[in-house]
């Protein structure tokens, strides 16, 4: 039997996750890193063989619950390629930033991260509705334990709130999926194309209901204003690797959900409601940016900045323009890379000094020039300086939005100004000025951390300087998606 690469992307992290979680710490570390690198290697092989058209590739299917017509189908296309690249790329990097001595039961932490990767890969690879739903919920369980077991103060309340909030959204999505499924016929009835075909045949009213059912899950996951209040708390409380998984990869589930399971399924519902969503998205950008300006906890500054950036992704998607959608995909990558880097910065400062409040830090650039450079590069990517990854995505997204409505683009463009305001404030408060406490200094970066950060920096510049390969890979799929999302 031929081995399916797609299946390996799920099984390998899952199995090695189980092994890791039950091994002693040192073994666990090697197993986890090795398995994540192999997974990435497999994905690179898949990329090499990937043909830049709009078709499904590396497909795998097997009957699952035959009586109900539920199937197990995997596949890769230009849209899912980006979040999968992000997942397989970021997990090894995130694993490299973990110092075993910082955590009580490091094997469990490492194992949970790998299991989460399996869930995320399922979401991004699923070509059938119930497998997608399974992955969606499965990815949540490990992060629930990561935050609940390894998190900071108030972790139980915050994690529970996060869990209930997202599950509530997921259930609405499940209802919508079941409704569509009930109208399908034949074997493998929950196949993406079958489901999409049926959903698109509903009239406008039904599509509107379905829209809100599906959208609830995605909006909460991203999160979109005003469904975001779980997010800053969850980011602040989770341990750094958990925050990185949440912000770097998991929130892209929401973005991907919109692209894969919302826009092509209910175009009438989208047409009916997109103004409202655009408005909420743009409000979110401005709202999140303004809040980030005066936050006193640097972890929350990054959290609100991430929230604002996701608002822009959402707005760009619902502009239903080629540049908006392509820009969103590029920004998925860029945002994942920079936000992981920024949360590393926060983590490193907190682990070194035991605090992370604005005003309690300063002058740390003296301790490590390398750390300052890493921070600066992530900052530049985040504020979207040209030739960094952030610019390509942001330019395309804002341009797409301006094609739809110039004034929305103008308000969304507030991020150009505000990102500089809050990011430079954070940079200054951490690195510049006089040291408040001359004894406390940054702990030296170890080899793993240096490798992780250099990789992130390389990515920031690579995507910023030479984005063409990425653009070419996604373009046909985006065109197809756009045709489905607007045509009736």
């Amino acid at each position, binding site marked *: 039997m031929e081995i399916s690469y797609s299946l390996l992307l799920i099984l390998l992290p899952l199995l090695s996750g189980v092994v890791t979680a039950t091994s002693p710490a040192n073994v666990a570390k090697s197993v986890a890193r090795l398995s994540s690198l192999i997974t990435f290697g497999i994905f690179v092989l898949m990329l090499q063989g990937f043909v830049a058209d709009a078709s499904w590739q590396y497909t795998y299917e097997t009957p699952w619950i035959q009586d109900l017509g539920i199937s197990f189908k995997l596949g890769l296309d230009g849209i899912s390629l980006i979040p999968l690249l992000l997942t397989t790329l970021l997990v090894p990097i995130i694993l490299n930033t973990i110092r075993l001595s910082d955590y009580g039961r490091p094997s469990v932490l490492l194992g949970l991260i790998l299991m989460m990767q399996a869930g995320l890969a399922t979401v991004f690879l699923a070509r059938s509705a119930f497998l997608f739903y399974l992955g969606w919920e499965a990815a949540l369980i490990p992060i629930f334990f990561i935050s609940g077991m390894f998190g900071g103060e108030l972790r139980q309340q915050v994690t529970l709130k996060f869990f209930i909030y997202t599950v509530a959204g997921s259930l609405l999505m499940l209802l919508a999926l079941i409704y569509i499924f009930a109208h399908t016929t034949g074997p493998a009835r929950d196949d993406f194309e079958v489901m999409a075909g049926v959903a698109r045949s509903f009239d406008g009213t039904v599509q509107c209901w379905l829209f809100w059912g599906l959208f609830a899950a995605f909006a909460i996951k991203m999160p979109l204003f005003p469904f975001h209040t779980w997010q800053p708390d969850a980011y602040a409380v989770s341990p750094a690797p958990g925050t990185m998984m949440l912000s770097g990869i998991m929130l892209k589930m929401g973005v991907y959900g919109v692209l894969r399971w919302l826009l092509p399924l209910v175009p009438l519902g989208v047409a009916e409601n997109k103004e409202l969503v655009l408005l909420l998205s743009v409000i979110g950008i401005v709202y999140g940016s303004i809040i980030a300006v005066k936050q006193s906890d640097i972890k929350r500054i990054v959290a609100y900045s991430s929230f604002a950036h996701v608002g822009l992704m959402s707005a760009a998607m619902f502009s239903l323009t080629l540049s908006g959608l392509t820009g969103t995909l590029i920004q998925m990558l860029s945002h994942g890379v920079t936000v992981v880097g920024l949360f590393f910065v926060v983590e490193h400062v907190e682990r070194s000094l035991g605090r992370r409040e604005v005003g309690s830090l300063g002058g740390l650039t003296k301790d490590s020039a390398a750390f300052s450079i890493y921070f600066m590069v992530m900052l530049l990517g985040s504020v979207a300086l040209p030739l960094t990854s952030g610019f390509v995505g942001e330019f395309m997204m804002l341009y797409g939005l301006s094609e739809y409505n110039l004034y929305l683009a103008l308000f969304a463009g507030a991020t150009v100004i505000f990102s500089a305001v809050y990011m430079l404030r954070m940079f200054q408060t951490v690195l510049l000025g006089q040291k408040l406490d001359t004894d406390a200094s940054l702990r030296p970066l170890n080899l793993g951390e240096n490798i992780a950060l250099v990789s992130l920096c390389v990515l920031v510049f690579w995507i910023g*300087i030479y984005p063409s390969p990425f653009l070419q890979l996604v373009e046909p799929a985006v065109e197809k998606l756009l045709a489905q999302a607007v045509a009736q």
Partner: protein
Amino acid sequence: MNQLYATWLVLVPLLGFILNGIGFRRISDSLAAVIGLSACIAAFGFSAALYLDFMQGGQAAMVIRLFDWISFQGLSVPFEFQIDQLTLIMLLMVTGIGSLIHIYSAAYMHHDAGYGKFFAYLNLFIFSMLLLVLGGNYLIMFIGWEGVGLCSYLLIGFWNTNTAYNDAARKAFIMNRIGDLGLLIGMFLLVQEFGSLSYAEIFPQVAQRFTENDPTLLAITLCLFIGAMGKSAQIPLFTWLPDAMAGPTPVSALIHAATMVTAGIYMVIRSSALYNLAPVSLEVIAFVGAATALLGAVIGLAQNDIKKVLAYSTVSQLGYMFMALGVGAYSSSLFHVVTHAFFKALLFLGAGSVIHAMSNEQDIRHMGGLRKALPVTFFTFLIGTIAISGIPPFSGFFSKDEILFQLFLHNKVIWAMALAGSLLTAFYMFRLLFLTFFGSFRGTADQQSHLHESPFAMTLPLVILALLATLGGLLNMPEVLGGNTWLAHWLAPILPVADHGAHGADLHTLENILMAVSVAVALLGIGTAYTMYLGKKTLPAAEGQPTSALHRLVYNKLYIDQIYDIVFVKPIGFISRLLGFVVEYLVIDLAVAGVGALARATGKGLRFAQSGSTGSYLLMMVAGIVVFLALVFKSNLF
């Protein structure tokens, strides 16, 4: 050949940045200086090679496409360079003055802990500035545009243990970003109209697509101008530039006087094809420029920090360049860009030499009589001062006079404002000169014992710049004085010929009269300064003791920083706290909790359904049967 030169021209400073950046604290100071300096001089060499090649190639503009940068269906933005007359002037100016300032810095920054870092940043700046002027489309220009902004941020806050300096750096970056948003929106509109951002594709189409003052074209040109306002410190986005003086003095000379701040002017000249069809936008530019020129000159009257005076003077001079643009006199504006680069770089470097000699003192009230101790600095500074004041035959006279002449032809109100500005300029510059170099020394004995002329590496650039400031007028000598207006002719292929009207005898007479007027006005300013500061030996009032309300107003820079603080900074901070600590928790989160509470209440209400009591189950069963029967037999019942 061109492609090779242009590529290396850009890569060499980038390489210098990388070497000095990675090697910082690992390589010696002298090696760092050699790397930084040779990178910049090599860039000058490549610029000169490009120039020669251009002359041999029949002076035809060329576009060099390197690779596709952002390209997808509907928009293709290649990484491309455009080399034409305008580019070459800017290239030679940036790398030439850049090299002189690198030489100067090698001595000026001596003993600084961040020596190698400083050269790394300077090279990065040159790299960005080269991209800005070489870019063949707006987006490549924008890379450079933002890149010089970043370098400006890094260099203003170079001494980063000082919070005030860091704040100044941040302010500069943020104010520039406000302008950048305008520029971005302008670019979006350009793409929507032309489907491209390349100069070579946009400009030939403008005339076919738009009639004069077409609303879209006005929107495009005004949005682009907002970008220029930020970068070139025009009202209302000018307050960052005086604060930017926190950076080391060579930075002020290179970035905040000679090159980066003129990027806005470069961009408007580059876009002249758009602006020519947007007279309303030009009118706006002219008035903003005039207002800025006057405002900068007025505030400059009462400043006591040697660099602050020069900074406000830069704001004011940039205003002159915009006034010229506003009446369509693009080549006159570029002429002033070039001469200003000479004399203002000279003045800043001279100021640096003074500060160096005065053990980091910047207050001119504590100086005086320095001409004896610093003869070279004094003499070159004197040339710079005369040049900026507009006294013939120094370069500033020709460029400023050409602008005044053009203004007079187009708009008498603006001309009058510009003339008033010249009066003030001559006054505050000579006030600065007299207080610094004449009279008796007013500093401490300690400072006096340390007074010394700067080393050769610092005086050499001063002398070269002084020569350029003296002779720079030759670049565009007016015909009425026997010149051949070389610069205007050089630029003619890419600029529409400025409508001088007929070059008749009347105009020549007028030009002569206007020259006499402006020289008289400058002399009046100098005379006033002489009487006040050398004749009466007046000293500016001490910090916090201005003599009158008007003086206090000017001394405090018209309280514009304070007004911005009250109108923008404070309210945004307040709203941020309001949203972050009140709305988030008391409105949105409470609503979420409300939904949760509702769910819990519903659960409580439904709980009795599963209470486990047989009695209630029986009751419900009976009720259910009744309802069921009623439904089944309802037709029979009624």
